[in-house]
């Protein structure tokens, strides 16, 4: 009798649960869908959401702190010193701008949207926006150029800075030469009074002979190691140099999207 009861109560429960289930689905048939029709409608981005970076170049002083903070090295900054005669203005935080930012590229294909570049910025000119739709068919199009200078202007500024540097170096050299000459003159005066200098000269050929004879073999691997280390660093610098070249190729495409 117990099993018979169970049999019928099973059937009853079966029907009941089916009815309950059908009631639930019927209710959901008329509850509004949770779907957001994406391109037509969008969900609100969180207020502190981290999406595409933007650089306000008016405030950028080219300090490269963001570039150094970047864990994936997606920010490439090149700067050129301004001439003392040029006035670059001040940032909104009242800081005086001294560098022409000839290149400010962010490769969003590399960017991991960590936001670590944002806090170091002294002028708060780099920040994350709520733009998240910027897919491209070509990966190079994801390199955004933020600099306000055109390629020619940037080249001119670099050239100008280099020349200024050269001039300064020349001046410095001249000054140094003058100082050296002065020193030499003073030394000559001193030599005239006390002549201990020739005593040192015999010592240096001995040291030279030592280094030539025995440690010649050992120095070479050491030199190679050194060159290897420098190669690594030069590789980085090479890639850093290559990037602008890539960017320059797509400059015309990216300029629009960057702005």
């Amino acid at each position, binding site marked *: 009798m117990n099993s018979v009861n169970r*049999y019928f109560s099973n*059937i009853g429960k079966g029907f009941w649960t*089916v009815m309950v*289930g*059908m009631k*639930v*689905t*019927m209710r*959901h*048939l*008329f*509850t*509004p*869908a*949770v*779907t957001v*029709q994406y391109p037509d409608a969008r969900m609100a981005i969180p207020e502190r959401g981290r999406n595409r970076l933007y650089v306000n170049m008016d405030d950028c002083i080219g300090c490269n702190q963001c570039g150094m903070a970047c864990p994936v090295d997606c920010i490439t900054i090149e700067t050129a010193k301004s001439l003392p005669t040029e006035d670059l203005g001040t940032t909104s935080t009242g800081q005086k701008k001294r560098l022409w930012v000839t290149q400010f590229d962010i490769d969003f294909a590399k960017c991991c949207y960590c936001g670590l570049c944002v806090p170091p910025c002294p002028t708060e000119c780099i920040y994350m926006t709520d733009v998240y739709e910027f897919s491209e068919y070509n990966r190079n199009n994801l390199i955004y150029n933020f600099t306000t200078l055109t390629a020619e202007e940037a080249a001119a500024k670099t050239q100008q800075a280099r020349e200024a540097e050269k001039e300064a170096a020349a001046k410095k050299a001249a000054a140094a030469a003058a100082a050296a000459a002065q020193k030499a003159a003073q030394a000559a005066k001193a030599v005239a009074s006390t002549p201990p200098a020739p005593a040192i000269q015999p010592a240096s050929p001995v040291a030279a002979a030592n280094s030539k004879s025995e440690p010649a073999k050992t120095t070479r691997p050491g030199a190679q190691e050194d060159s290897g280390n420098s190669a690594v660093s030069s590789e980085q610098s090479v890639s850093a140099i290559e990037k602008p070249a890539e960017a320059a190729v797509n400059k015309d495409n990216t300029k629009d999207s960057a702005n």
Partner: protein
Amino acid sequence: MHNFITYYLGTGFWTSLLSSILPLIWIFPYALVAMWIELKVSAHMQDRLGPMRTGGWHGWAQPLADVAKLMQKEDIIPVAADKALYVLAPVLVFIGSYAAYAAIPFSPAYIGANINLGIFYIIAVSAIVVLGILMAGWASNNKWSLLGAMRTAAQLVSYEIPSSLAVLAVIMVAGSMNLNDICAAQSGWFWNWFAFGRFPFLFITFVIYFIASLAETNRAPFDIPEAESELVAGYHTEYSGMRFAFFYLAEYANMFTVSAVATLLFFGGWNSPFGAFMSGPVWGLFWLLSKAMVLIFVQIWLRWTLPRFRVDQLMYLSWKVLTPFALANIFIVGLWTVLK
């Protein structure tokens, strides 16, 4: 309608051809609409929206796009498949579900074949579907397909008995196997329908038939043969393109067949629910189709409500619940008919 055709074309080859093609004119648009309804109903039951873009208004053209895609797809026949059977199987499946349309009286004026064994013919011929499925599963030479096909066969023996017994109860009350006569016996207001006759026994019969017919269409909760979480896609795993479309079309055609039969047997078929109001040949077509569509909606509703049965649960349900109840029903209904 049939008389109309025979009047103009005689009873030759062309008449047969024309009247055999007529249901297709219904099946294709119906299948597209049912597919769309299924997409939308399933989506909204899950609080989604479903297709919204294809064709503009609520993705109405999605089934059309799907069909266009299926027609363009490559027709793949596995190297190890039994080619002849593999090609024949989808055709046979569709034939099985399409042949049943011959005996369905769409309206008092149109029935493909007004035969005295109408319902018997439908039950018999729709079993060909299982043959086609078994053929597909075997010919695919794929373990999933074969497992699905075997399950179909196991399912057939389970659901055919309660469904036949349920039909038998109606036949006893109506005293005929001709579906047109069964419909005519339910004319008048809707309380004359067999679902409400001999209350509640014929209603229980209807529930039994409906559950069994769900199993017949291989749809959830009885989609054991194609259980996608277990058997990839069951018997049509290897099929692609138009051959797959045939299986799909056959499924929807079969859904309509069982719904139409349930309508004819239990809900007055082409009879208007309001007596003589809104009745006639054209209204008859409307009533049959709309009643069947309501039942199809219930099928879709159940599909998106219930999880899949296990094979043993199906066996339990069919053999230990539906069959005894159907037998008891036959006994009571028969007694009632005799003693009336």
